[in-house]
């Protein structure tokens, strides 16, 4: 589904990712862990196509396509969702309006019919309910005045409605209390399926107690330095990154 081959990425002329290779198959959950500054968020931004993240070498293929040749909104249309570490506020735009516009833009991209108002409302309400988000919250402006936990939950509602093929979740667990962590984990687990894949980017092991990964990778200084099964996360937690990558 996703095949990254010897990827090099620079930001403002500084190389952050220095030859990263990774293959993700449908149905798999991969956790990418690593110390601060290892390049975790840079990887997420690059896959989503953010400006200023310059790919200097290597390739990324997604569902048989050259991902790097696609514009950010096309990648979204192809089913790639990025859960933001810091979800953005958009004053004056309601969550519902934002989400419906986004969903229908993706559907148009894929040549699917747009969802009408009633069908969309039903979908949004159902998904919000699963994630314990009220209708009032949906009517409020995108992330404006939301707490850290509410913003992350909102990301999960968006993910559930947009129903992506590949979800890249960038530190979705950071800043969550234990209850919010459980809710968010539920949202992620609900998305698991044989035709989808999830890339969990996280600093801590605790999310992985709730969303059990198939593979764990340690990213350090722009490269994957170790890969293993779910037990690797526990080892990292016990010994720290320094010992694990030594």
């Amino acid at each position, binding site marked *: 589904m996703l095949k990254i081959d010897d990827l090099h990425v620079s930001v403002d002329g500084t190389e952050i990712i220095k030859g990263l290779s990774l293959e993700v198959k449908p149905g798999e959950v991969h956790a990418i862990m690593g110390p601060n500054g290892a390049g975790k968020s840079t990887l997420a931004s690059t896959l*989503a196509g953010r400006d200023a993240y310059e790919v200097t070498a290597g390739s990324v293929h997604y569902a048989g396509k050259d991902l790097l040749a696609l514009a950010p*909104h096309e990648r979204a249309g192809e089913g790639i969702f990025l859960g933001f570490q810091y979800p*953005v506020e958009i004053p004056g735009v309601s969550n519902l309006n934002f989400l419906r516009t986004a969903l229908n833009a993706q559907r148009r991209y894929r040549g699917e019919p747009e969802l009408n108002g009633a069908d969309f409302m039903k979908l949004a309400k159902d998904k919000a309910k699963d994630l314990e988000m009220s209708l009032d919250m949906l009517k409020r402006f995108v992330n404006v005045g939301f707490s850290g936990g509410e913003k992350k939950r909102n990301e999960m509602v968006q993910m559930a409605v947009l129903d992506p093929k590949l979800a890249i979740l960038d530190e979705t667990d950071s800043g969550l209390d234990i209850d919010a962590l459980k809710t968010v984990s539920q949202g992620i687990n609900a998305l698991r399926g044989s035709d989808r894949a999830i890339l969990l980017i996280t600093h801590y092991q605790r999310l992985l107690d709730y969303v059990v990964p198939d593979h764990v990778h340690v990213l350090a200084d722009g490269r994957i330095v170790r890969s293993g099964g779910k037990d690797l996360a526990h080892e990292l937690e016990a010994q720290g990154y320094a010992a694990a990558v030594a």
Partner: protein
Amino acid sequence: MAATAETREQVDEATGDYKYGFVTEIESDFAPKGLNEDIVRFISEKKGEPQWMLDWRLKAYRAWLKMTEPQWAMLDIPPIDYQDAYYYAAPKQQGDGPKSLDEVDPELLRTYEKLGIPLEEQKVLAGVEGAPKVAVDAVFDSVSVATTFRAELEKAGVIFMSISEAIREYPDLVRKYLGSVVPIRDNFFACLNSAVFSDGTFVYIPEGVRCPMELSTYFRINAENTGQFERTLIVADAGSYVSYLEGCTAPQRDENQLHAAVVELVALDDAEIKYSTVQNWYPGDKDGKGGIYNFVTKRGLCKGKRSKISWTQVETGSAITWKYPSCVLQGDESVGEFYSVAVTNNRQQADTGTKMIHQGRNTRSRIISKGISAGRSNNTYRGLVRVQAGASGVRNFTQCDSLLMGDQCGAHTVPYIESRNPGAQIEHEATTSKISEDQMFYCLQRGLDEEAAVEMVVNGFAKEVMQQLPMEFAVEAQKLLGISLEGSVG
């Protein structure tokens, strides 16, 4: 941001042509080029006006000769040769004007179609049964050619007709109020309008009547080199209510077109007038060539107690905009409101805002201005809040927000506050922000393309104003914001 610049170029390539830029071929019945007393007489005669109207025009013309253009706005205006323009052009018609839509030149109707006027409104214009009740008084090159729903309005006692007709049919009403809010000598452009105004709209809502439908006028400029001098007069008698919509687009031109409209509103005791504008005249090309010069004087008089006048404007077009819809709050407890979104892109210049003149006691005003600048444009909010000595208990709230796109445009806020009453409560808030790369990327990642993302963020920014628009306009206006800012992210 190299990728963004590239996108901008691509978008410019794809959408560089003004969407509504076309010329309808209809023969015009021109007056000769230039301006003198004979032209003023020609216009008056063409319209079959009474002597008092001609005298009024001549008085204005003579006053205008002694006036000079205002220089205080933050605008770079090329010299205008007033002798190098036509002051009268009307679509050629048999007799003294069409009696029904069947008599309207089909070319005109096709023009509205090309403009993308919403289907419901086209139906209204075409008089289709069951169409929504938005009456359209279509002004095409200075002469009203189609008026719909007049019968139903007449039943309610509402007068809605071209001002030329009103001068003939309701001379006393027109004479009483014309120039009562914007006097002949008010300013250079209003004075010019008073001398040569070609047509416009007259509305009268009788006492206690709530106008049964939104009244709507589409202004179009169509003949080459024809100055457009519209005159609008709306009088809301005691306890009445009216909502008036004005919208415009224009065909593409190489030469600059002068526009100097005057709008006067009068609200008597407990009356309310809501005046909404979506202005989308040709703004000129990327380098500022062509485009409309828009010098408009709009003023409302809250003459009666507890009367209310509310201006809402979405300004996206014109090369130059000089426009300050204002309220004179004469009646005690009267209310004035001004909601504005002004978008400038490329080389456009806008100097726009409002004046709230508090004369009566316990009068209130509210000003919400949203300026959006892109390209190499300049966008100025200029506003005056004046409180006269005898006006006790006055309150004003002003909010001016500016949004910048790119780093070559300018946003300016020039508030004037003159209070001669120490009890007045006047609040002013202002913010300036840039459309953030974070917001853009967030939208793009969710599947919106660049233009849709801009439209989303900008409409959010302008929401407070957009939600003041009547439903008929809101959707169109939202699209317009997106169209006007196409290719300006960066």
